[in-house]
């Protein structure tokens, strides 16, 4: 071998060695380091996905927007801590309701200033409600929440600190509506000075600015990066006690970045997907929040599908028994899912009207087989030696691409259907295409979908889920309708008598569960990672973050 060639090989070997050492150093020195000194002690930093679409309460409907609005503005009533069953005073000190259940009188606090120093009074309250209804946000249409029982004539100023709201109809969830971000009180002078109210038009200034009475005010918003809130020195709740001065909500799409931020102490709180929780479990200084959320997971049947057998309730009952719920919980959601007996999630009022919170359907292929056989759907189609039902017509199972949990559930369901002698096809497509299929075609038989709360009342779940399209329901376009269920939904909605509401929801449940238009799969566990130095946090599914309660120590 030539001398130069040997030298060349040696050089190559040395270079490789240097690179290997560099690589080894970077990978092998993974001594677990954990941040113990509190970073940014007066600043709360949350790393999450997504970012607000708007900061205007009259437009905000997505959770990222509502989160900021809820901390910049106050409403007449609110929730405390993790209590979802009671509503507490906020800008209203107290309230009364007349015997007609239509006339509500709210007595306001006298000591409330907006963050710019303007006093808050009944004029602002009336202005805020009428603004939502007049603006009628064309992009989000969130005004529908108030319009369920209010119009432009509903709010009357009795005196500077008393307002009366006359509902257009009785509504059992009225106070829950008032606790939602859309009912936030804005400063009339500020809004009027910045575009005012234009019918059916969103206010461009209010999208990115705002003056509220809440504990925090907007410091700055860098799109696709962060929203920073600073404490409102005029806040009526005062700043004695322990609170954070600044709130930073970061929009970080990449899970590994959020995890590293939590581990190195940059983040106090972060959204961690189920699959990554193992990365932070049992690490010093870190804590995993696990609470039942109001986010429900559903499997929808198209009862007017081009596959005519989907119209038969016995087929849908059989399929409800063929779904492997435990597999969904264990395999798809890594056990971060609770069973859901019906439309109403656990924690919400009237949950127990659903078979006392016990699921009617459990995974039982023998039962599914029996129901199908009794209904005449026999395994009578021979295809290459295997006998199928429905003349070997395939049931079309869909999930939206990128959703790993739904993919696993679809494949598990397909296996169960195969065992039952039912041919099936699992398909996926992007979210806008998925919605197109659901709402504009009948070329699907089963789809996965979820639902998150608007406000804390069962009417926000039952009516859209199992109400008919004619009654303003059928949100998922399943084509299912039942006049009796509609009647019970309306009874529950339009009464404030808890006993009557419970009776109505029980009766509705007993009908829709035996003629299912969907499989009630589960209720997701809310999982987040947080530093143990963060205190004052409590999970409330309808007021997810209330930063005023937080402090670091």
């Amino acid at each position: 071998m030539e001398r130069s060639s040997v030298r060349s090989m040696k050089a190559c070997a040395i270079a490789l060695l240097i690179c290997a050492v560099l690589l080894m150093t970077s990978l092998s020195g993974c001594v677990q380091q954990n941040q113990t000194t509190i970073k940014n002690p007066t600043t709360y930093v949350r790393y999450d996905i997504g970012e607000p679409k708007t900061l205007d309460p009259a437009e905000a409907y997505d959770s990222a927007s509502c989160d900021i609005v809820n901390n910049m503005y106050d409403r007449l009533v609110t929730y405390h801590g993790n209590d979802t069953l009671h509503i507490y005073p906020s800008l209203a000190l107290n309230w009364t309701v007349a015997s007609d259940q239509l006339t509500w009188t709210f007595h306001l606090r006298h000591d409330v200033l907006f963050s710019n120093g303007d006093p808050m009074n009944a004029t602002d309250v009336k202005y805020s409600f009428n603004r939502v209804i007049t603006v009628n946000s064309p992009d989000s249409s969130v005004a529908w929440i108030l319009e369920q029982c209010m119009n432009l004539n509903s709010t009357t100023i009795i005196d500077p600190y008393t307002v009366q709201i006359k509902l257009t109809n009785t509504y059992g969830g009225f106070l829950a509506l008032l606790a939602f971000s859309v009912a936030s009180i804005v400063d009339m002078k500020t809004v009027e000075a910045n575009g005012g109210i234009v019918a059916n038009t969103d206010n461009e200034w209010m999208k990115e600015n705002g003056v509220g009475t809440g504990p925090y005010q907007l410091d700055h918003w860098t799109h696709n990066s962060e929203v920073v809130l600073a404490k409102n020195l005029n806040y009526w709740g005062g700043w004695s006690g322990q609170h954070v001065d600044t709130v930073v909500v970061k929009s970080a799409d990449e899970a590994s970045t959020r995890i590293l931020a939590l581990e190195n102490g940059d983040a106090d709180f972060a959204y961690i997907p189920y699959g990554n929780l193992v990365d932070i479990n049992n690490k010093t200084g870190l804590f995993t929040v696990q609470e039942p959320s109001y986010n429900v997971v559903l499997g929808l049947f198209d009862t007017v599908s081009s596959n005519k057998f989907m119209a038969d309730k016995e087929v849908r009952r059989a399929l409800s028994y063929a779904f492997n719920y435990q597999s969904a919980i264990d395999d798809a959601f890594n056990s971060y899912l609770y069973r859901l007996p019906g439309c109403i999630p656990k924690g919400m009022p009237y949950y127990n009207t659903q078979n006392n919170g016990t699921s009617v359907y459990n995974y039982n292929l023998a039962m599914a087989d029996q129901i199908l056989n009794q209904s005449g759907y026999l395994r009578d189609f021979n295809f290459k030696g295997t006998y199928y039902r429905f003349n070997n017509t395939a049931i079309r199972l869909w999930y939206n691409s990128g959703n790993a949990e739904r993919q696993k559930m679809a494949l598990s369901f397909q296996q169960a259907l195969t065992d039952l002698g039912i041919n099936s096809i699992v398909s996926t497509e992007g979210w806008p295409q998925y919605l197109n299929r659901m709402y504009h075609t009948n070329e699907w038989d089963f789809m996965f979908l979820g639902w998150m709360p608007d406000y804390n009342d069962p009417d926000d779940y039952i009516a859209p889920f199992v109400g008919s399209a004619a009654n303003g329901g059928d949100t998922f376009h399943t084509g299912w309708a039942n006049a009796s269920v509609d009647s019970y939904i309306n009874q529950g909605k339009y009464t404030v008598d808890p006993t009557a509401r419970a009776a109505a929801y029980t009766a509705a449940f007993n009908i829709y569960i035996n003629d299912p238009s969907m499989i009630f799969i589960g209720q997701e566990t809310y999982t987040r990672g947080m530093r143990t130095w963060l205190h004052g946090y409590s999970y409330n599914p309808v007021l997810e973050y209330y930063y005023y309660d937080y402090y670091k120590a």
Partner: protein
Amino acid sequence: MKTWEYIVRRLILLIPVIIGVTIITFTVSHVIPADPARAFAGGPKAQPEAIAHIRAELHLDEPLWKQYFFYLNDLIHLNLGKSYLENRPVLESLRDYFPATFELTMVAMLIAVPLGIIGGIISAIKQNKISDHFSRIIAIVGYSLPIFWLALMLQYLFAYLVPILPLEGRLSVGMVPPTTITGFYVIDSILTGNVATLSSSLLHLILPAFTLGFSTLAIILRMTRSSMLEVMSADYIRTARAKGVPERKVIYQHGLRNALIPTLTVIGLQFGALLSGAVLTETIFNWPGMGRFAANAVLGLDFNSVMGFTLIVAIIYVIANLIVDLLYAMVDPRVKLGGG
């Protein structure tokens, strides 16, 4: 042809390029059977009024050719439409995100171009020596390392294990961005005399710029090396050496000037590619730039944002190629602008 005439001619050619790009992008994005109006209005929670409003704004009920006509009409009036994912005009989004990406790309190129060219020259003149082997390994690693892996490793090393650099973002937590003059944080910090944001923005640039520039460095390095090797074996180099021209002058004046032309082509293309394709780097480093914006727009079928982004990228490519062509003429006097 005079230089300014050449520039004007090339810029006029932008018009058919833009029309071609809009036709292709518009058609591709609109023929997919989808319900973007419902997706923008909140998915299953969308209210019928909101869906109808968005459908009307996007003219979704009109035939495709009419929709394109509306789009072109808006474009002529410099209206790129509304981004429904961001709930604001596309132009505003691009105004915010373009400087962020441009700043990142410029720093990435500042790392990649000098190191790549110098590395390529050394590698060529020290062919098969240790420095050549080392640069070859750097090039191979640069080519083959997945950008997301490199980004994650750098984050892990320098923001967690040895926390000397920031993990993500453009500024430290809670720091107010400098007053917007150009949109480039570094320049705006200098112009406003804000030392704190200047140092923070520079520190925040290091990891993402290195990640973005590393593969470009590898490409430039290899391209410069191979060009230099070819040029250095040419007759005129041998003649120059025979005439007793100093080796340094042979390399830099006779060799490099001729070897730079293919490298310039690569630099121009890479510049455009980095500006339009920094999706992974921007996502991992939480960099609020055009790459993340475009990726979200594509996934959400936000037509207007996709179209706006594509237009910007097309313009960038045309301008980058124009600059490269001008540089050809500067570097090599034999190159005549506009042919002939």
